[in-house]
């Protein structure tokens, strides 16, 4: 790479607008040099600056009594769970890299989010993910799924962090632009946390971890444009992961934090050295002087531009406490990691980079970062035209299937509903010996906390792109409500969320309208459930030549269980238990998986949600669990009550079946496959029937006995009676059959 003369044309090639280029000139009081242009282009990219989204994100509720570090303050949110222990958690996307290099893209997505957690001094204890692909009948999508799953597995497994929950959906709208959202949860003692701050004139700035290469240069800029035919050529913009080095980095960093040797540290993800130095300096109100010739390089002939922008993985920037340099170097040596002093903290606010004695770049730190000089845009928004058309849907145009049993089995074995065991079996879900309920066992994963005896957390990712496409505001609300409901079903009280907002091009007013609406819906729901937003990630420009993806906000929910005796699975527990429906059955087929799969239509309106009512349903379940009445709980979601009941049988013990009688004056397909919010299937012992009615009565929530756990088959009215063993075989084998037979 050669330095070039900086012109407006070159700035535009770097993704900057003319106005932004003018702004840079006025900040510097001169034309930036080539390195500086690279710096501004990457720091002011959508990915780093959140310039289109920040104005909306600021409207989200962030306050809460458990919040120790809120959104935007540190690398991840920090939530108090008592006993002097805090949970750090965050979700992040790695969509574009995974679209062109699925294995490395997904692996480095996991690596990046893990670094965000241990940069705070927290040990990662669990990972989750949320994935979207085009349909699996295409070889390309099977290749993407296979690569992404192996990438997530290889990285997380090697790190010794269990991958415990997630979700996957397939839809043509994600063709060519899959979504790979990775979430990590860590724990840290209150007094062991680390901050991403630089302070103290003369303190050493050190680079810990891998050497720096040309990989991932302009990864952040690449993430801030639409994918195109030429994107394949951008493969060098994808980073390459080395989980072994990251594992060493994790252990070294936790040792550094425990021994209190650091003022602060920041991991290097997007925009490498420049981003970490700018953020740390700005936060501490200081400057930094960095000699780029000290940076250990992987390749020869790298110029300052490349060194500053490289997104080589597994690196950390450290600001060391005075007099502790030697101790830091010793720990790095123990873990066989590079650790080099590359500069120092200086008075002032400027970042000064030099190389081989020459000045390479001088920029004010503050001018680069979010909340500082980075641009903020209030994008134009307009309600999309397609919405009106979707509402013209009339259920009378949909024929009720003549063969209900076949329709039910088609849903059960569809890629969106069938068991994802083929996927999660490739993830170590039990390492660290904390996994009480792993994948496939309950509505959320449950991880006990050894350091806080008798406590556990429940975690889950949820997001329904189709819902949000049809009704962005309600879709945002439902994403939060469903994730809250899922952790409630395991016995946890929802306490905070992280979110990953995957949308199309924000410069398209219709896309931006869906973004604003969805964010507003998330905010409303978070207020009702008292689950502040602790941070997350926005991924725009998720488009393919056909248009934008489904607007897909993904919520990562954190719930707290204060007594291990309150943990509940989703499957049936004991023969003879009564099966009870808490909440009401909506029977809405608009936007449902049934309408999509069986009738090939994405139309109508999605199920209604009354957030206050939802909250009461959740309170009913929590009280029912805590008082020992409810033995299992599972919410009604994709595929309606019929699929939910099948899942209760499949996840239950010893092929326990159920005998269900449920009557409503609605169509058969609405009754069985209609989707509904605020409805949860629970089981109770016969002797507790009165008690559950008391609890539901207290919250004024409908409580209807719909059947009994009995026999070894699932029967619903006279629609069908199918052995549980058969249901399980079909549910479990659908995905493997599709993938093992046809992979590549």
């Amino acid at each position: 790479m050669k330095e070039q003369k900086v012109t407006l044309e070159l700035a535009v090639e770097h993704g900057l607008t003319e106005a932004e280029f003018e702004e840079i000139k006025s900040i510097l009081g001169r034309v930036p040099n080539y390195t500086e242009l690279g710096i501004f282009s990457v720091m002011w990219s959508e990915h780093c600056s959140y310039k289109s989204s920040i104005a909306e994100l600021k409207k989200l509720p962030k306050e809460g009594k458990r919040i120790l570090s809120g959104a935007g303050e540190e690398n991840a949110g920090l939530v108090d769970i008592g006993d002097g222990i805090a949970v750090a958690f965050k979700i992040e996307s790695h969509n574009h890299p995974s679209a062109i290099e699925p294995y490395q893209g997904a692996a480095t997505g996991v690596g990046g989010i893990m670094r965000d957690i241990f940069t705070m001094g927290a040990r990662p204890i669990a990972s989750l993910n949320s994935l979207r692909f085009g349909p699996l009948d295409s070889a390309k999508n099977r290749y993407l799924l296979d690569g992404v799953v192996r990438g997530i597995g290889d990285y997380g497994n090697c790190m010794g962090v269990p991958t415990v929950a997630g979700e996957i959906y397939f839809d043509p709208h994600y063709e060519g632009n899959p979504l790979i959202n990775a979430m990590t949860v860590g724990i840290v003692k209150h007094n062991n946390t680390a901050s991403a701050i630089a302070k103290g004139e003369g303190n050493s700035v050190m680079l810990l971890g891998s050497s720096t290469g040309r990989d991932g240069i302009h990864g952040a800029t690449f993430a801030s444009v639409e994918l195109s035919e030429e994107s394949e050529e951008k493969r060098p913009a994808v980073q390459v992961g080395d989980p072994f080095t990251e594992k060493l980095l994790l252990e070294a960093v936790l040792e550094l934090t425990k021994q209190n040797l650091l003022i602060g540290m920041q991991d290097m993800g997007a925009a490498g050295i420049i981003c970490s130095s700018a953020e740390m300096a700005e936060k501490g109100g200081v400057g930094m002087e960095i000699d780029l010739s000290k940076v250990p390089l992987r390749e020869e002939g790298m110029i300052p531009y490349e060194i500053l922008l490289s997104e080589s993985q597994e690196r950390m920037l450290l600001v060391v406490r005075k007099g502790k340099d030697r101790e830091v170097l010793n720990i790095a040596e123990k873990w066989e990691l590079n650790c080099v002093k590359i500069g120092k903290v200086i008075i002032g606010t400027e970042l000064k980079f030099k190389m081989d004695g020459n000045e390479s770049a001088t920029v004010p730190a503050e001018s680069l970062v979010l909340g500082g000089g980075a641009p903020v845009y209030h994008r134009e928004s307009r309600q999309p035209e397609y919405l009106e058309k979707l509402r013209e849907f009339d259920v009378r145009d949909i024929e009720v299937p003549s063969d209900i049993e076949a329709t039910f089995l088609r849903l059960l074995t569809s890629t969106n509903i069938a068991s994802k065991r083929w996927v999660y079996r490739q993830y170590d879900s039990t390492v660290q010996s904390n996994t009480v309920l792993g994948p496939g066992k309950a509505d959320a994963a449950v991880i006990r906390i050894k350091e806080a005896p008798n406590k556990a957390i429940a975690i889950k990712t949820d997001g329904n792109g189709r819902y949000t496409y049809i009704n962005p505001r309600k879709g945002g609300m439902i994403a939060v409500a469903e994730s809250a409901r899922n952790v409630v079903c395991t016995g946890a009280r929802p306490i905070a969320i992280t979110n990953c907002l995957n949308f199309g091009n924000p410069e398209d007013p219709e896309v931006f309208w869906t973004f604003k609406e969805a964010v507003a819906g998330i905010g409303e729901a978070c207020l009702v459930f008292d689950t502040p937003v602790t941070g997350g990630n926005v991924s725009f420009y998720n488009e393919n030549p056909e248009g934008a993806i489904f607007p897909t906000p993904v919520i990562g929910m954190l719930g707290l269980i204060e007594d291990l005796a309150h943990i509940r699975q989703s499957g049936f527990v004991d023969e003879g238990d009564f099966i009870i429906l808490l909440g009401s059955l909506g029977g809405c087929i608009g936007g449902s998986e049934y309408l999509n799969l069986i009738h090939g239509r994405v139309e109508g309106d999605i199920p209604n949600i009354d957030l206050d009512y939802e909250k009461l349903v959740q309170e009913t379940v929590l009280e029912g669990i805590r008082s020992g009445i409810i033995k299992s709980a599972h919410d009604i979601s994709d595929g309606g009550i019929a699929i939910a009941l099948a899942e209760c049988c499949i996840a239950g013990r010893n092929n326990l079946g159920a005998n269900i009688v449920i009557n409503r004056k609605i169509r058969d397909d609405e009754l069985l496959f209609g989707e509904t919010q605020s409805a949860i299937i629970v089981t109770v012992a016969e002797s507790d029937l009165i008690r559950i009615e008391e609890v539901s009565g207290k919250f004024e929530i409908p409580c209807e006995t719909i059947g009994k756990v009995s026999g070894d088959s699932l029967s619903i009215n006279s629609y069908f009676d199918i052995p549980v063993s058969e249901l399980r075989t079909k549910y479990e084998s659908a995905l493997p059959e599709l993938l093992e037979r046809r992979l590549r």
Partner: protein
Amino acid sequence: MKIGVVVFPGSNCELDTQHVLQNLLGQEVKMLWHQQRDLDGSDVIILPGGFSYGDYLRTGAIARFSPIMESVIEFAAKGKPVLGICNGFQILMECGLLPGALVTNGSLKFISDDVIVKVEAGNSIYTSKYDHSQLLKMPIAHIGGSFFADDDTLAEIESDDRVAFRYCDAEGNANSESNPNASIGNIAGIYNKKGNVLGLMPHPERASESVLGSTDGLGLFESLILSN
């Protein structure tokens, strides 16, 4: 009793192992860094699971050259107990303390799942708390755990009664259906000739508390403590 748990760069089950021995069973546990040669007076050595050296080159292939392994080999030669779990099992094979090889799973994929294994040979150090043929539920989590040995070695292991555990179904049948990773003879764990070195792929330390769904692994550690 003092138990030494060896930590290699990339080990990731050392804390789980420590938790069971120290917090649940009240034993003294020493973490032994791979660079040291001193075993710190340990009565038992455990090589925990993980990805030592990232499993680069081949699982366990680099870890065997760590300085501590010379001491571990001497320790084993004196008849003292050495237990290798998962990656630890792989390292024991690479350094020659156990015969055979562990190759990539039949599915060519990482497998994380609960399996059932049957206690085969009785061993005074490791299985005294188990009944003969007892079935144990434990998790496995590996990509390179398919046991392989040439015919002569296999015949020797079998005739010496050195198969410690075999994958089986809930009825105790060891067959291809109940073999998660295509191990020869459904072998999940083996002893050395003297019976003081055990390697196994399943994770007993992840099956030692009822809250985690199984306590079947605890017996192995309890047996080990009882024998010392």
